[in-house]
């Protein structure tokens, strides 16, 4: 018997906020059309921000500058530690400083195409327009971008684009952009407009009269759980890649804030769209707690190969040239080692599935710099990649100048998230969602250097405009202290924490999380099939039941209790994982990061099915173990004509 639930199809959903007319002026016309809140009234309005990464930190600072009262929450001990800090490569902007033919329209076009025609044109065009202002804003804040000798800003090329539009700060662009937002945020803390709640975790959304009016948050130090009320709530809580247990995400990254909102009625869109990054350091053993990304730029000079023979465990230096398979160069002669992320990842998986993978686990391929060192000299290679080589050696103990690096794909980013309209408002009025937490701009595959762009566009420029429109028109009355919805939400949270602590079973939270991660990786990872997804859908509900009857969470709720924090997050991942598999099962086409084994071209490439799947899949929660309802938002392409991608 199948454990998994099926789904039903409900009414289509549409983005009623999206403007029509010429795409060039949609955002400008929309900005003029929104209602404004006068400065005296802003001071009386309170906004809750959850998450302090690029999207959340930038928005909290900007809303504070505008005069709103902002309460900002993060689970880390400082807002500056949000996972945006770890982004390496850069941020795209259509500045055309290189005079190489870039434009807003080209960035818009590349992003729509890179997303495999599964994103909205209006949103992406706005993103491309705002990209230019973001660079201005960050430079004004003192972000130390790389510069040329003339003192002007440097740029570099990135995947999926033929122009040089990526601004960067060495390999720490995310860190420097986040520090800009964090410092602007702290300035508002000092000014009294923003109140920071560090080491606080949102555990529930409070809805009153159909509108988001507050959250229940737990103080992770004292354990105190209480409600915080506001006129609007913004979730900027990041992505859910940690459903796979192993990912490049920070250990604390989680889905709880958005999942709690989903359970309260916010639609969750395209949950199966995940990005697998091809160049990460492979797993070294069962103890592994996270995966580390090695910048994509390494594929400029590194050659990817595995032995031709199965089970060839000789030292790579002893394997002669004619017994090596440079599989990317062989399969994709036009792009070679520089094929896009999804293609490179799948090809690496295929050779490992064929038992030709390398390293102790067999899950790895070589990234070999010997040809580059021979051609350019060791010093030149060190100048380009020295810091990455050092990091690799620090982690693996192997010197990549002497032996080839071993790499393997890893979960990196989630394109899916809560459904939002053009105003970044979810299906719950007053609940806004920004950055990786929403689903909006990357379609089925995100291009490199676009995540930072989207987080900051949402945070600095889009949300501060659109949330005013909501607040000006909402006519909210204060929430009475004894509102039953508040007491109910607080009670739900308390009961859940109690339940987690009282099970006192035999397995740790991490052991459940690992098992879920294995299932997700095996069946809902780089390649998905009908058979595999059904297996996962059979097992996940069982695993969830085991969790709720056999998990062991020591300690109490009235103190700093990291096991309890993890348990709540894993409980939500155990629900999300099921929805991801269901979404992946229903979408029988391949697109972007979602590769269905059944939907490929004759030569093994992803085959989209525009006739049947040119829509956003927005899922409605109907209860744990109940069939969710699928609401489709049709995607309309007026400016870019969908085509099949080819990199041969």
């Amino acid at each position: 018997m199948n454990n998994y639930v099926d789904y039903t199809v409900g009414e289509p959903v549409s983005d009623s906020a999206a403007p029509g007319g010429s795409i060039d002026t949609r955002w400008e016309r929309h900005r003029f059309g929104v209602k404004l809140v006068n400065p005296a009234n802003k001071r009386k309005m309170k906004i809750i921000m959850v998450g302090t990464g690029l999207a959340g930190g930038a928005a909290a600072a900007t809303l504070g500058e505008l005069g709103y009262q902002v309460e900002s929450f993060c689970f880390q001990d400082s807002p500056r530690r949000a996972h945006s800090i770890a982004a390496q490569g850069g941020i795209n902007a259509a500045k055309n400083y290189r005079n190489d033919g870039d434009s807003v329209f080209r960035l818009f076009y590349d992003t729509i195409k890179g997303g495999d025609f599964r994103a909205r044109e209006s949103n992406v065009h706005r993103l491309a327009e705002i990209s230019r202002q973001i660079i201005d804003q960050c430079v004004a804040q003192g972000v130390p971008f790389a510069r040329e000798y003339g003192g002007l800003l440097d740029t570099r090329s990135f995947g999926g684009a033929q122009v040089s539009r990526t601004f960067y700060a060495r390999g720490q662009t995310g860190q420097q952009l986040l520090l800009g937002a964090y410092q602007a945020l702290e300035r508002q803390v000092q000014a009294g407009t923003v109140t920071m709640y560090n080491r606080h975790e949102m555990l529930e959304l409070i809805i009153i009269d159909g509108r988001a009016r507050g959250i229940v948050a737990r103080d992770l130090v004292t354990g105190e759980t209480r409600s915080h009320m506001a006129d609007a709530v913004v979730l900027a809580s990041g992505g859910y890649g940690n459903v796979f247990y192993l990912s490049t995400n920070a250990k604390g990254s989680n889905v709880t804030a958005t999942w709690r909102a989903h359970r309260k009625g916010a639609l969750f869109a395209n949950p199966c769209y995940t990005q697998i990054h091809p160049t990460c350091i492979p797993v070294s053993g069962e103890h592994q707690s996270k995966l580390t990304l090695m910048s994509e730029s390494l594929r400029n000079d590194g050659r990817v190969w595995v032995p031709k023979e199965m089970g060839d465990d000789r030292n790579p230096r002893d394997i002669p040239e004619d017994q090596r398979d440079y599989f990317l160069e062989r399969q994709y002669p036009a792009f070679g080692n520089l094929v896009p992320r999804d293609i490179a990842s799948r090809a690496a998986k295929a050779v490992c599935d064929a038992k030709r993978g390398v390293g102790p686990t067999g899950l790895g391929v070589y990234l070999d710099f010997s040809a580059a060192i021979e051609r350019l000299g060791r010093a030149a290679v060190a100048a380009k990649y020295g810091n990455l080589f050092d990091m690799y050696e620090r982690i693996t103990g192997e010197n990549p100048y002497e032996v080839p690096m071993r790499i393997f794909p890893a979960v990196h980013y989630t394109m899916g998230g809560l459904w939002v309209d053009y105003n970044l408002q979810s299906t719950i009025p007053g609940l806004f969602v920004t950055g990786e937490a929403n689903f909006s701009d990357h379609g089925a595959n995100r291009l490199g250097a676009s995540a930072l762009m989207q987080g900051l566009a949402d945070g600095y420029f889009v949300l501060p405009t659109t949330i005013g429109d909501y607040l000006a028109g909402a006519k909210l009355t204060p929430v009475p202290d004894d509102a039953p919805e508040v007491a109910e939400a607080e009670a739900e949270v308390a009961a859940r924490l109690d339940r987690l602590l009282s099970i006192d079973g035999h397995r740790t939270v991490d052991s459940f999380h690992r098992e879920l991660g294995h299932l997700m990786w095996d069946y809902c990872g780089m390649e998905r099939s009908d058979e595999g997804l059904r297996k996962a859908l059979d097992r996940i509900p069982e695993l969830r039941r085991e969790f709720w009857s056999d998990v062991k969470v020591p300690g109490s709720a009235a103190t700093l209790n990291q096991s309890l924090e993890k348990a709540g997050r894993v409980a939500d991942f155990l629900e999300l994982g099921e929805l991801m598999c269901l979404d992946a099962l229903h979408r029988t086409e391949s697109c972007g990061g979602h590769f269905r084994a059944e939907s490929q071209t004759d030569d093994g490439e992803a085959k989209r099915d525009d006739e049947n799947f040119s829509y956003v899949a927005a899922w409605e929660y109907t209860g744990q173990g109940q069939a969710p309802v699928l609401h489709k938002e049709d995607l309309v392409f007026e400016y870019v004509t969908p085509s099949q991608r080819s990199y041969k």
Partner: protein
Amino acid sequence: MKLKLKVWRQSGPDEKGRLVDYVVDNADEDMSFLELIDVLNEKLILEGEEPVAFDQDCREGICGSCDMVVNGYAHGPQKATTVCQLHLRHFKDGETVTVEPWRSVAFPVLKDLVVDRSALDRIIAAGGYISAPTGSAPEAASTPVPKPNADRAFTAAACIQCGACVAACPNGSASLFLGSKIAHLAELPQGQPERWERVVNMVEQHDAEGFGGCTNIGQCTVACPKEIPLDVIATLNRDYLLATTGGRRRHIA
């Protein structure tokens, strides 16, 4: 491999702490130090004990969350390495390893290895920024910055605010942290309008938080996982001196 651990356990801010002995006999040289604590914690949980509380997040050396004094060194003995990237291959089989929290008056212990570093946020809030409200920025290319200044600004800005400099300093000074932000912003043309107020306000906040003064010992830069150079403290001192005695400080009530 097998490691004997002496780990600081303290159940709350006002409780008395102590070093407790543990043995992990299924460690592996490819593990990071935090994964070693993970393994210990899994064992403790199954034995019905509370796991060791510690701060961590990105586990790739950039978020600045992790903070352990390992064998007397902030972030352990490996140079330019946060404890999350410290691997067990640098330890000997059977070795005894002592693990303690950051020690500083300004970093009260909350539980086990977790300390409160919010004082560092308050120092930033006192002036560690350039006032550039969203939307007010001029075109990015209109402000050229000489490459050497941009590079020095970047070197200083690489600070991850982990607090190792404080933990390593015999005076418990946060001068390296403070100097890194002062030097970052002082190198840039955008940072000039608020330069003199910034340094005074940040130094006053630093002192008010209970951090000690700098006596040029230099332990901070050795412990710093990002190798922030000691000369940022020279920049800090110079700017502070100019601001307070050189008549540069203006507009201050």
